[in-house]
C-alpha cells in the first residue's frame, strides 16, 4: 500500500471512529451526568415531603438560589421527590386545592406517567410507584372488598423522581403555590405484611 493510501485509510478510519465516539458519548451523557435532575433529586431522598426545586418569588423576596432549572416558569412552583424502589413502593399523596397541580413520574429514560388534579378522588391524589414484582404482590394481597383510591404505576427502573408542579395563576397565589408543593408527601409505603399484621 502506498504511503498516501495508508494515510487515507487512517483518516477514513478516524472519521468512522469519530462517529462511533459521538454516538457513544451522546448515549452515555444521561447515565454519567452528575448534575442532572435525577442526581440532584437524590439529595432530598430522605425527605418525607417534596423537595422544593423552584420556589416562586413572593412580594419583594426573590426566588431562592436553590432553583436549578435553566428556564423556569416564573408562575409555576416545582418540587421533586426522589424514589428508590428497592426500599419499597413510593407513595405520593397530594391534597388538591384551588390551584392547578400536576404530578409527573420520571424514570431514567424520561417521564412515563403524568396526572393532574382533575383525576383526584374526594380531594386527594394518591400515587403509588412500584416495581412489577411489588405490583403483583400488592394485587395478590389486595382485599376484594376493600376499594383502593391509589393510582398504581409500574416503574420501568428502580430509581427516578416524581415532579410536583403547582401553577399560581395570579401573583397573589404564589405563597399558596409554594405551600402546596411543600404539602405533598412522599413516603416509602409500608410492606404489605406489616399492614396486614397491624
Amino acid at each position, binding site marked *: 500500500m502506498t504511503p498516501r493510501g*495508508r494515510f487515507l485509510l*487512517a*483518516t477514513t478510519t478516524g472519521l468512522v471512529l469519530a462517529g*462511533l465516539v459521538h454516538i*457513544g458519548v451522546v448515549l452515555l451523557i444521561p447515565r454519567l451526568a452528575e*448534575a442532572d435532575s435525577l442526581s440532584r433529586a437524590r439529595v432530598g431522598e430522605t425527605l418525607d415531603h417534596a423537595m422544593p426545586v423552584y420556589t416562586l418569588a413572593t412580594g419583594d423576596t426573590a426566588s431562592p438560589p436553590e432553583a436549578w432549572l435553566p428556564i423556569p416558569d416564573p408562575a409555576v412552583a416545582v418540587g421533586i421527590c426522589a424514589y428508590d424502589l428497592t426500599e419499597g413502593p413510593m407513595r405520593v399523596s397530594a391534597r388538591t386545592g384551588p390551584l392547578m397541580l400536576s404530578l409527573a413520574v420520571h424514570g431514567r429514560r424520561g417521564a412515563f406517567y403524568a396526572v393532574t388534579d382533575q383525576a383526584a378522588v374526594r380531594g386527594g391524589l394518591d400515587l403509588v410507584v412500584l416495581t412489577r414484582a411489588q405490583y403483583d404482590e400488592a394485587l395478590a394481597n389486595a382485599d376484594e372488598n376493600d376499594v383502593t383510591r391509589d393510582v398504581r404505576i409500574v416503574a420501568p427502573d428502580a430509581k427516578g423522581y416524581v415532579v410536583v408542579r403547582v401553577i399560581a395563576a395570579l401573583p397573589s397565589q404564589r405563597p399558596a403555590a409554594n405551600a402546596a408543593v411543600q404539602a405533598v408527601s412522599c413516603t416509602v409505603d409500608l410492606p404489605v405484611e406489616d399492614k396486614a399484621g397491624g
Partner: protein
Amino acid sequence: MNAADRAAPDRRARADGTPGRVVGAVRRAIRRASTVSLILYTLALGAGIGLATADYATRGGYPFGGVTVGAWTAWPRTGSVGADPYARAVNARRSEIPLAVGEGMLLTAAQDDAGQGLDAACTYAIAGITPPARAWTVTIAGRGPRDPAQPSLREGFTSTEILRESDGRFVITLSPEVQPGNWLPMPRASGPVRLALRLYDTPVAASAGTLDRAALPAITRTGCAA
C-alpha cells in the same frame, strides 16, 4: 544598505516558500509515518472530532424533535420516554425537568412571523389565541443574563392575569418602552430574546403535528428603537 538589500529577497523567498514548505513537510511526514504514528493519528482524530461534535450537539437547546408552527417551535416529546437520545443528553446536561406529555407542552420562539430574530431593541405584538389548555404562560426565556440595572417588573403572563378582547383574543406588547395593555418589558437593552409559551394540561401535546398556525399567537414586529 548592502546587508539590507541582500536580506530583503531572502525574506521574500522565505515568505513565499512557507506554505510549500509546510505541504512538503506534511508529505514527507505521510511518507515516513510509521504504523504506530498512523494509529495514534486515527485515534486522535476519532476522539477529537467525536467528542467535539457530541459536545456541540448537546450544548444549549434541543438539536431536533421540534415541530415548527409559524414563529413557534413545539417540543412535545422532549420529556417523554420516547425522547430522542440527544434530547435526553441535553436535559441531563442542563439539569432540566421537561414537561411530560400528560402535563403540558413547551413552545419556544426565537423569531417573529417574518423570520427575523427577536431583538431586545424592538417592539413586538404577540396577538391571537392559544390552543386549548387549562392554563398557559408566556415568558421571556433566557438567552443571556438579565440586566441587573433594570428592575424586574414582569417576566411573563399567565392565562388568568392577561387582559383580553371581548372575543377572547389577547395582545401582549413586548417592548423596552412602557405600553398600555399587556406590557411585557424587555429583559435587557439589546441582544436576542427568546419567548417560551407553556401550555399546561393540554390535549395538544399528544398531537403537536396537527397544530395550525392560526391556533397560536402571531408575533409581529411593530417598530424598532434603531
